[in-house]
């Protein structure tokens, strides 16, 4: 089961990287404050499941077919497990962190957020149809809010652009968001935000430059940082939430 799980994820990453610019990213549709001045109460829809992970985006192992991919994955998997353990040891929940930061930032702008239950779907739970970046394909109407916010995480965790010291590991967060009207038909806002713009195939996302304090030239440096590395994730999720609120 585990082998199938990581092989399928690996294949998904490989396909994503191979497709490059072919991947349909969220559009850049800005929010019109004047048109939607009465939008104050927003329901945040359940997010699909996401886990903190670790990735070398352009791993040279991916250039050598399935064997190369398997070797690259064998190298990556224990590092990813270490990061997940470290996050668990620090009781860091990225969804809780993001939710708190977005709620506060939106409240400061006069919005009232109501988060759906569950905030994030459990791993393996039955989900609605979604687009490539995780946003829903369709929305139903709501009567108890002025608008619906669909938020979804892409890669979250630590990512490096390549396998050399010139491509350090940095906290990385990819967030897609779409605000639709209460009728579920009209798009009020749509975009995506990347903290640490390490995925070169992404088409002009809103970019947040990463904090240089959390820059680790190699995995050993990240490992030695321990709790500080988790703090880097906290900084990244807060920055992404605040940037999203800034758009609305």
């Amino acid at each position: 089961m585990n082998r199938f799980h990581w092989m399928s994820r690996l294949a998904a990453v490989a396909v994503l990287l191979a497709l490059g610019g072919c991947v349909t990213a969220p559009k850049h549709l800005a929010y019109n404050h004047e048109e939607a001045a009465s939008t104050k109460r927003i329901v945040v829809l359940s997010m699909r499941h996401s886990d903190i992970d670790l990735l070398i985006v352009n791993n040279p192992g991916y250039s050598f077919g399935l064997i190369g991919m398997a070797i690259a994955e064998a190298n990556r998997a224990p590092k990813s497990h270490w990061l997940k353990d470290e996050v668990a040891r620090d009781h860091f929940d990225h969804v809780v962190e993001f939710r708190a930061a977005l709620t506060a930032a939106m409240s400061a702008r006069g919005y009232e957020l109501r988060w759906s239950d569950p905030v994030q779907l459990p791993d393996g739970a039955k989900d609605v149809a979604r687009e490539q970046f995780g946003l829903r394909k369709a929305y139903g109407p709501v009567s108890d809010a002025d608008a619906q916010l669909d938020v979804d995480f892409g890669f979250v965790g630590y990512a490096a652009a390549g396998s050399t010291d010139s491509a350090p590991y940095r906290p990385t967060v990819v967030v897609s968001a779409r605000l639709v009207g209460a009728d579920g038909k009209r798009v009020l806002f749509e975009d995506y935000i990347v903290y640490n713009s390490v995925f070169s195939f992404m088409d002009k996302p809103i970019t947040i430059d990463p904090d240089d304090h959390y820059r680790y030239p190699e995995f050993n440096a990240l490992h030695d940082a321990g709790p500080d590395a988790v703090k880097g994730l906290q900084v990244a999720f807060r920055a992404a939430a605040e940037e999203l609120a800034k758009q609305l």
Partner: protein
Amino acid sequence: MCLLRLVVLCALLFATCGAVAQAEDAACAHSPAELRAFVYPAVPASTLRDAKSADYVFAANAQCLQSADEQRRAPALLIRIDKCAEPANLHLTSISGKEATLPARLQVLDENFTELKDYPFDRFVKRGMDYTLTLFLNPSPQPRYLLVMPDSEWLGRVNHLTAGNRWTAFWSTGTVMGTISNGTEVRRELPFGSGGTMRIEVETDNRVVGGAHAH
């Protein structure tokens, strides 16, 4: 005799300085109405929503504009938006040049050059080394103007970008060949200044869930 020459020389000097000052003064507009306006759409279109994108190289097209209190001069780009019968969303992008990123401050002016709205550079969104802003224009039977100037609050600051870069190399052993890819981190820095290009394009999306572009 010498005293007379000195007096004549000084008079000539003052006259020259005055002429230069007057020429500079004449070259610098005292109000946006005195600036030469570029027209958008640059290529005629039946409606604004059909307009093609247009690029305006800031350093080449900006003209000198003196502030209302006459304390400051700055380069300014004036773009006339032709009348539009229906709402239109304009995407503006400040595209970084080789030497600078324009920290654009944008004013929307009516047909009498009266300010309707003011967008400081804080309102722009960072996308890599570029910055974008969307303007939501209501229908208007009259033309409107966009006045683009450097936001003085941002001059002297630096535009930073940390990003991943993928490279691919070809290899061959004589009998076997293939490619190998890896990545590096690229760090770019540009000062905010009077450079770069201002791009204007019209949003074509119909903003309906699952909908495609309007065209």
